């Protein structure tokens, strides 16, 4: 038993406490001085703390000449006590942004987490130290260790070629399948009378690189299969003694690589699909809504005409448009529906959202020019592309309106119709109100005048000026748009508006740009709410779902790493004699450890590379193949994918880090074998 090194313990404790204090300080400073989101602040501060714990373990391993698990453990335990006392005194905000630590039990939990985290991360850091020879003098070289690791994994030229082939051919085939199905789809469209290439070759010719890659993959796959058949045929002719025996560890190594590859594959594909959903949702939300709203802590926003040019002069702001928002009831005949009635300026609305491009019938500008709304049924725009049975609905409604032109008028004189202000409604609302362009709808606001029996709702007739289609059911069924002057008159607001809609040059900088604008306007009573804040529930739910998915799928990689662990233990048992020989020749403990760590990382790395390629190919396949979804359920026609390089990189980092951790036990075991353990056996 090695003695407990007090000096190492004290240094570890000091470093741990410093890391903990730094985390608190960074969190406090970042949230007070910067515009980073709370998530980013937590990520940065805890990331820094984790790195500091790792580094502390690394340093202490040199002081304690080994893993120092007892010294680090004692220091972590002391840190937990310190953390408990500090948190108890400070009562810092909890992770749910608005709650405070009130409960001592919760503090216990966090202190315990801090201690456990410090210990594990410290040990992880110490493993780097031990690997570099913390037991005496550091040695960063690993040339002969790598050579020996290579022979253990049988990474000779043949197996490397085989691995490269196995790593490239299946993803290549997936990619080829995607290219082929898309080309086939295009040809099918052409046959159905739509524009498209006449045959598959012509369809593929447009994407020469994809064609070349997929052709190469198919050829390589055929060669590989041919080679395999040949090898099997040769094997059948050999006598049993002539067959080369493969040790169990070689098979286990292959299984370990496959395990990591499958885990990484699943993780990347699922995260890419979830990112795809998120990106799609973001696109739809930002298509209908602006990036941010400029609001005021007062009901008086009559100076907006002066504020607009000021806002537009802020460099990061690309557009601004006034809006008024109120809840109303819309009805046509006997069908009422609740709605968010938004007053907009059709001239500038296009600079902050996609409304003008969402019009599928009529014109957005007609809301302020009611004279232009035709008295005969307006045709749907030919370019309108709707999901599911949407296009059919448009055609049917248009034809119905055409055959019953009297429905439009409802006994109102054409002159009176022309004077009615215009309103734009979503496709779903048009469906439920059975209202088409030119139809009259009633808008009722509960904020009416006082009568003898209480408030009397006020109502007014509008004519439908356009039908909008955003692709989000919520928006298409709930929003209606009228001109700003009409809204001001209807809600009796005078010259007031609710606020300004803003568009930024960089969506992701919305928070920072918003703050800059508020500062430029002189701060209070102005305030900016950005899209992330406005849709926090939705995006938080998505993020949580993605995180939960990532954690669950990381377990696949974790299980794969247990494969690595058992493979390495088998290898250590198989190579006990060799380890002894190397030690008798003067190999250090850390050298032996390096051999097995390198092997584990090689297994993990090869598996990760294969998994990433498979994931990438699968994403490309999903994108090109277009897996159908029911648009009435998901409001999206194909399974979306969004390949995010950062996400792939993170998955790779997690997989390699986990496989490194899996090597530590067998590698340490191997390094501690006595030189005579393997010599005694025979």
């Amino acid at each position: 038993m090695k003695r407990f090194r007090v000096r190492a313990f004290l240094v570890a404790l000091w470093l741990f406490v410093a890391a903990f204090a730094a985390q608190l300080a960074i969190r406090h400073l970042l949230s007070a001085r910067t515009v980073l989101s709370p998530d980013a602040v937590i990520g940065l501060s805890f990331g820094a703390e984790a790195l500091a714990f790792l580094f502390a373990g690394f340093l202490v391993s040199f002081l304690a000449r080994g893993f120092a698990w007892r010294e680090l453990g004692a220091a972590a335990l002391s840190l937990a006590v310190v953390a408990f006392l500090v948190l108890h005194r400070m009562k810092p905000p909890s992770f749910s942004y608005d709650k405070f630590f009130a409960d001592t039990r919760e503090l216990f939990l966090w202190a315990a987490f801090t201690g456990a985290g410090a210990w594990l991360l410290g040990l992880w850091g110490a493993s780097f130290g031990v690997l570099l020879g913390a037991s005496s003098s550091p040695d960063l070289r690993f040339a002969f260790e790598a050579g020996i690791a290579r022979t253990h994994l049988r990474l000779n030229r043949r197996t490397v070629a085989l691995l490269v082939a196995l790593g490239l051919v299946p993803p290549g085939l997936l990619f080829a399948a995607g290219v082929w199905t898309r080309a086939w789809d295009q040809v099918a469209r052409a046959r159905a009378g739509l524009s498209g290439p006449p045959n598959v070759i012509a369809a593929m010719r447009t994407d020469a690189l994809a064609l070349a890659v997929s052709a190469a993959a198919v050829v390589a796959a055929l060669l590989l299969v041919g080679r395999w058949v040949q090898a099997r045929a040769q094997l059948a002719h050999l006598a049993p003694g002539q067959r080369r025996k493969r040790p169990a560890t070689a098979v286990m190594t292959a299984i370990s690589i496959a395990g990591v590859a499958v885990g990484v594959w699943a993780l990347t594909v699922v995260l890419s699909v979830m990112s795809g959903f998120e990106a799609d949702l973001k696109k739809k939300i930002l298509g209908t809504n602006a990036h941010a709203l400029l609001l005021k802590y007062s009901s008086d926003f009559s100076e907006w005409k002066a504020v607009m040019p000021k806002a537009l002069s802020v460099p990061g702001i690309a557009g601004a448009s006034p809006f008024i928002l109120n809840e109303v009831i819309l009805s046509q005949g006997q069908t009422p529906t609740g709605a968010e009635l938004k007053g907009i300026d059709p001239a500038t609305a296009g600079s902050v959202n996609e409304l003008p491009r969402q019009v599928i019938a009529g014109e957005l500008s007609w809301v302020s020019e009611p004279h232009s709304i035709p008295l005969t049924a307006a045709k749907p725009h030919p370019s309108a592309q709707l999901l599911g049975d949407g296009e059919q609905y448009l055609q049917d409604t248009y034809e119905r309106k055409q055959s019953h032109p009297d429905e439009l008028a409802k006994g109102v004189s054409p002159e009176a119709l022309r004077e009615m202000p215009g309103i734009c409604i979503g496709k779903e609302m048009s469906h439920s109100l059975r209202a088409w362009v030119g139809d009259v709808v009633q808008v009722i606001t509960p904020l009416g005048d006082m009568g003898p029996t209480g408030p009397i709702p006020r109502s007014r007739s509008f004519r439908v000026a356009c039908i909008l289609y955003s692709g989000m059911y919520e928006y298409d069924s709930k929003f209606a748009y009228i001109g700003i002057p009409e809204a001001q008159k209807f809600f009796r607001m005078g010259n007031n508006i609710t606020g300004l809609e803003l568009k930024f040059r960089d969506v992701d900088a919305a928070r920072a740009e918003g703050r800059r604008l508020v500062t430029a306007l002189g701060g209070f009573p102005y305030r900016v709410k950005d899209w992330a804040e406005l849709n926090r529930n939705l995006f938080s739910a998505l993020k949580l779902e993605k995180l939960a998915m990532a954690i669950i799928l990381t377990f696949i990689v974790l299980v794969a790493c247990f494969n690595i662990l058992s493979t390495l233990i088998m290898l250590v048992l198989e190579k006990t004699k060799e380890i002894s020989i190397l030690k008798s020749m003067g190999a250090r403990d850390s050298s032996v450890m390096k051999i097995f760590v390198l092997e584990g990382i090689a297994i993990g790395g090869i598996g990760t590379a294969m998994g990433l390629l498979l994931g990438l190919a699968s994403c490309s396949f999903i994108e090109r193949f277009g897996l159908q979804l029911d648009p009435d359920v998901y409001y999206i026609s194909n399974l979306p994918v969004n390949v995010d390089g950062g996400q792939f990189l993170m998955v790779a980092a997690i997989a390699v880090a986990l496989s490194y951790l899996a090597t530590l036990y067998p590698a340490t075991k191997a390094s501690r074998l006595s030189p005579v353990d393997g010599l005694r056996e025979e």
Partner: protein
Amino acid sequence: MEAALPVEPSPAARVEAPLLEGRGLHKSYWLGEKEIHVLRGASFSLRAGEMASLVGPSGVGKSTFLHVVGTLDPPTAGNVLYDGQDAFEMGEEPLARFRNRNVGFVFQFHYLLPEFTALQNTAMPGLISRLPRDEAEQVAREVLELVGLGHRLDHRPGELSGGEQQRVALARALVLKPRLLLADEPTGNLDEATGEGIHQLLLDLNRRLGIAAIVVTHNPRLAERMPRRLRLHEGLVVEA
């Protein structure tokens, strides 16, 4: 660290202390409940360049003795001194470096790494001591020539005969010019003629390179040709 290594002893030390000295070496193993005493206070010394044979019946603990004096296995009690310094007082890494530079082992089985060629196997101690690959292979080539295998550099152990394998093992033990060679029945697995060749080579190398050696053997003729003969008897080393 470097200064603590007894690699280059001062002239005075060379006179006073022998190259290798065992003092009261005890070694015992536990086999279940039973403690087996292999060495019971063995003491001996070996001068630099001296060559000795070690004989004794099977199971008497000759291999254990070699492992202990070769710093592979610490004794239960007693000291192993090189140039008057206790080897097991060194830390793990200095001891490994010392072994790398000063002690060469040859075992009854060749224990070559099967995936590497003769040259790579022989270069391994050089690589372990972090010599550049070219340099390590250059030295290895020279030593392989010395043991008469200059023509079989790129053969793997599986492609060599038993005698050749043992010669490669010998070359590997000698590649870094150690001061002590410990051989554990190096010819125990070879036929007489081949074994005789290895014996001749051992004696030859001792004469030419001045390497001290302890050779464990069952072969009385080889033992007789050694300048000094030791015998392991009841856990003690006695002059035969």
